């Protein structure tokens, strides 16, 4: 654990008895009180996560918008100031470099929030393709990030700020907001499928913000939540994880993210290959699987047809506490994607029956 990178909240995690693990070179808590309890807190009340390991890259300059638009699948020109967009950065062959959030400060200033494990790769990729009139700055080390998620997230944060959080709609943000006296960028975004916010602040103030939020949320049943709960929540809500549902070898179309891949926009890396995939018909697609037989499907387990031929593999799998079933995402041959189709997952050499299920497994009722 000594050689690992530590977030500004490392000491807080130890004091809360977080079970620390090596997560892509970062020392982070996989859980505090227990994954099931933490998932339930976020679904019913609220949870707070340290996501300071995420990477942050600033894109500035006259050419910032058009260049960024040439690097990602979604249409950056449709973003207004104060809005956030989910997008994917692709290789020319349609494989994924990373998925990211794009915050528009102005037409010539954007913040990219990228996966921790991909930050160095993304930084290199962006620099290799950097256009005219564009400046890049990797500010990952100067930014701490907390996520407060769950139906009571707004109530908890509102108690610590004068900013009217109702005014921050889904996938919008405000800058220079004081929360518990700490200067934050705050967005109504998250990775749990619940309402909630992500707060970015200076590392030196992250501890104070964390402690104040924990204290403010205690009466409402807010719990500190680890990586285990985060992964379970995102998986239940149908949110992709790089290296699982999308990767160097799995395109965003195959991974079920076609909504974020626009073709009626200027050229971008991967556009031609993705268009060819779409027009030629996808050979494989992401589906949900719900186990009929007892057993837990896990990433990389083979998916078989009735005759035992492999027709795909599991990308993420787990017991889902919210739907109370063993479920999986799987990338399967397009002939087997209709809901209700019987497929089998090979779990430790045993073939367990499953049914194709519509994704996501969990969807909250209303969105702000």
């Amino acid at each position, binding site marked *: 654990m000594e050689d690992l990178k530590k977030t500004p909240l490392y000491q807080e995690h130890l004091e809360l008895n977080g079970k620390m693990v090596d997560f892509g070179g970062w020392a982070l808590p996989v859980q505090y009180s*227990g*994954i099931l309890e933490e998932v339930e807190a976020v679904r019913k009340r609220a949870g707070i996560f340290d996501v300071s390991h995420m990477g942050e890259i600033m894109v500035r300059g006259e050419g910032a918008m058009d260049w960024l638009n040439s690097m990602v699948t979604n249409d950056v020109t449709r973003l207004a100031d104060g809005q956030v967009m989910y997008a994917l950065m692709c290789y020319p062959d349609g494989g994924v470099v990373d998925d990211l959030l794009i915050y528009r400060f102005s037409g010539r200033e954007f913040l990219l929030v990228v996966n921790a494990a991909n930050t160095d790769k993304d930084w290199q990729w962006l620099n290799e393709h950097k256009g005219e009139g564009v400046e890049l700055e990797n500010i990952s080390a100067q930014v701490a990030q907390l996520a407060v998620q769950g139906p009571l997230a707004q109530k908890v944060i509102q108690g610590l700020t004068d900013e009217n959080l109702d005014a921050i709609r889904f996938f919008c943000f405000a800058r220079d907001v004081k929360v518990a006296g700490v200067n934050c960028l705050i967005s109504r975004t998250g990775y749990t499928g619940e309402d909630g916010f992500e707060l970015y602040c200076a590392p030196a103030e992250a501890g104070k913000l964390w402690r104040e939020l924990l204290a403010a949320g205690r009466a409402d049943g807010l719990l500190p939540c680890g990586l285990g709960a985060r992964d*379970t929540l995102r998986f239940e809500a149908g949110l992709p994880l790089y290296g699982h549902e999308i990767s160097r070898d799995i395109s965003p179309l195959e991974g079920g993210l076609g909504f974020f891949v626009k073709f009626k926009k200027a050229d971008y890396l991967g556009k031609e290959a993705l268009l060819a995939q779409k027009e030629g018909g996808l050979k494989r697609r992401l589906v949900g699987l719900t186990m009929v037989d*007892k057993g837990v499907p896990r990433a990389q387990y083979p998916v078989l047809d009735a005759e035992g031929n492999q027709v795909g593999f599991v990308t993420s799998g787990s017991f889902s506490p919210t739907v109370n079933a063993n479920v999986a995402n799987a990338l399967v041959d397009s002939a087997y994607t209709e809901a209700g189709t019987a497929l089998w997952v090979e779990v430790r050499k045993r073939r367990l029956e499953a049914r194709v299920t519509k994704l996501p497994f969990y969807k909250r009722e209303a969105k702000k």
Partner: protein
Amino acid sequence: MNIPQDLKYTKEHEWIRVEGNRVTVGITDYAQDQLGDIVFVELPAVGDEVESGDGFAVLESVKAAADVYAPVSGTVVEVNEDLEDDPALVNTDPYGQGWLAVFELAEGEDLSELMTAEEYQQFLAEQE
């Protein structure tokens, strides 16, 4: 960490209760704490013959599957069917209602390698 005096222990964090030529096996409090919430238990069938060191059960936590290795050689004579409906018993009562299986020891099975409670406590201290 709860380590009952009347049980034997292995380096794989299992406990064994010896009663004549029958032994009951489960995982220790330390092991359940390390695994986190158990959501599914895969048990052997009664009548299965198991060699010491073989995986005889699988405990699935939310995030991962963990094999449980047989601490002895023998025949499975009983399994804890309550775990099918309530796998969390392994977490809440690892030395009691969370037991996994009962084995009838193979002929000439030697239990002298198993640790006492004191030895296991010492072993845990060295792991930290």
